[in-house]
């Protein structure tokens, strides 16, 4: 969600010129680690803070406070020439765990499947593991297939999907480019299948959607508090939609 954080920071320069907001990327864990080490005021995260991180923060004198600032859909993407246009959560799980190895098995061409994922430090990776590969079952210990490629950036995923007809990838809705085909996702084989969009996420029908968070300290500095309030206000939420995420104000 670094794109969104940058969009907020840039717009806030005109809204409050005296406050300087600087943004660093690197994944949810990086941001939370920085909050724990007191090097940042606010940490954006696309996953919930882990209990051990809360414990670490407390040990370091930081009491992290969670605010939901936007919603996001995870789009499952393939090459434009791939004939497959819809998959169930079970099929996606089987593809990523290595049970399905050929596109033929899900109604596509006779081609091997190349699995592309974000690195393990990305909140998107952890979310996808828990909610898709393991279908939201905490007792399920399924792993990504060992040959899943872990790419360090969304750009890496975008370029792989753009040229490789064998590839399947996933990333936040905001990172989808015109050079990818987005797969409609359904919960059961009989459908219905939905494409990710602001509408389907807001209506709660697209199955792979999540909240995005900002973590702050219990007593944030006044500029940080004002910035957070601005993000939750109309100006901040308008940018959420512009960046390809789903704003809160429409949420049910």
């Amino acid at each position, binding site marked *: 969600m670094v794109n969104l954080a940058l969009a907020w920071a840039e717009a806030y320069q005109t809204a409050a010129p005296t406050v300087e907001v600087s943004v660093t990327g*690197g*994944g949810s*864990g*990086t941001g939370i*680690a920085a909050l*724990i080490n007191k090097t940042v005021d606010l940490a954006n995260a696309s996953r919930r803070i882990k209990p*051990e*991180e809360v414990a*670490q923060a407390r040990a370091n004198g930081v009491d992290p406070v969670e605010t939901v600032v936007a919603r996001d859909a995870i789009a499952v993407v393939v090459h434009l020439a791939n004939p497959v246009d819809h998959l169930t959560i079970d099929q996606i799980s089987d593809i990523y765990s290595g049970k399905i190895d050929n596109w033929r098995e899900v109604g596509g061409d006779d081609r*091997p499947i*190349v699995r592309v994922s974000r*690195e*393990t*430090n990305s909140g998107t990776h*952890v979310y996808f*593991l828990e909610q898709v590969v393991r279908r939201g079952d905490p007792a399920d*210990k399924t*792993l*990504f297939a*060992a*040959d*899943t*490629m*872990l*790419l*360090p950036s969304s*750009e*890496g995923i975008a*370029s*792989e999907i*753009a*040229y*490789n007809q*064998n*590839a399947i990838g996933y990333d936040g809705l905001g990172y989808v480019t015109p050079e990818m085909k987005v797969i409609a996702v359904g919960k059961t084989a009989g459908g219905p299948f939905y494409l990710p969009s602001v509408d389907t996420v807001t209506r709660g029908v697209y199955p792979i959607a999540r909240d995005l968070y900002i973590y702050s300290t219990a007593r944030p500095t006044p500029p940080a508090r004002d910035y957070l309030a601005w993000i939750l206000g109309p100006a901040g939420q308008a940018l959420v939609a512009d960046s390809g995420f789903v704003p809160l104000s429409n949420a049910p």
Partner: protein
Amino acid sequence: MTPAWRERLVTVTIRVAGVSAIAFLVVIFFFLIQQGVPALREVPLRDLFGSRWYPIEALFGLVPLVLGSLWVTLAATLIAVPLGVATAVYIAEVAPRSVREVVKPFIEVMAGLPSVMLGFLGIAILAPDLYRRLHLTTGLTAFTGALLLGWIAIPTIVSVAEDALDAVPRAYRDGALALGATRWQTIWRVTLPAARGGVLTAVMLGIGRAFGETMAVMMVTGNAAVIPRGLGAFFQPVRTMTATIAAEMGEVASGSVHYHVLFLIGILLFAISLGVNLVGASVVFRARTRAERILS
């Protein structure tokens, strides 16, 4: 300031510079040991020898990472050593002065290219091209990484090897040619063996450069922690030790088991580069004593 004082100042400065290099190395080494060795207590040895690396589920098998690094480095060496040594021979022995004056600076510019830029070119151009041309399942493979690493290692090999060839006394070549040897025989039987120590140093430095390279490899090798099996694995993704540290160190909670294991990988990297350099040094040393025996 009297000349004697100036002399002393210079001596002391140089000594401090020299000793500080060793001191830094020792400090780094101790830091690595201190942060990495706890991993040996926290993770059973059998798990470290496991075949699966998936740190968020506490699977810390290092085998795929070590083999991944060695695999990519081996491929890069096969590409870079012949090309690098041949280029050095060409520049030092064959090329006319005018060509030499153009080629050498170009090679040095090649050495100055930031590896992240090469990685970017690798993702944008090389990977899709190899995918189409060689009909691979993906363009992000060990081979793609090896090509970039070869490119990165070549300037190091060329410039060190060329210096070594240049230092071979003119009389050796003249002697060989006067005995009726052809130009090729002179290069292959006289000049190259005479410069063997320097050329081997060049090769070792090149291998070290390839082994330790991070950014370009992380961008183009696909980072899938699989154990390479057979020659076909050249055209499949691998995950190297350096890429693993770079990708995961930013995220990891300091003091955790994962953090300690990443430092353990650092120790392994350090040990393997040290091993490569020691082997290189001993070969050079042996070659030199043999040459001295023959000459005496």
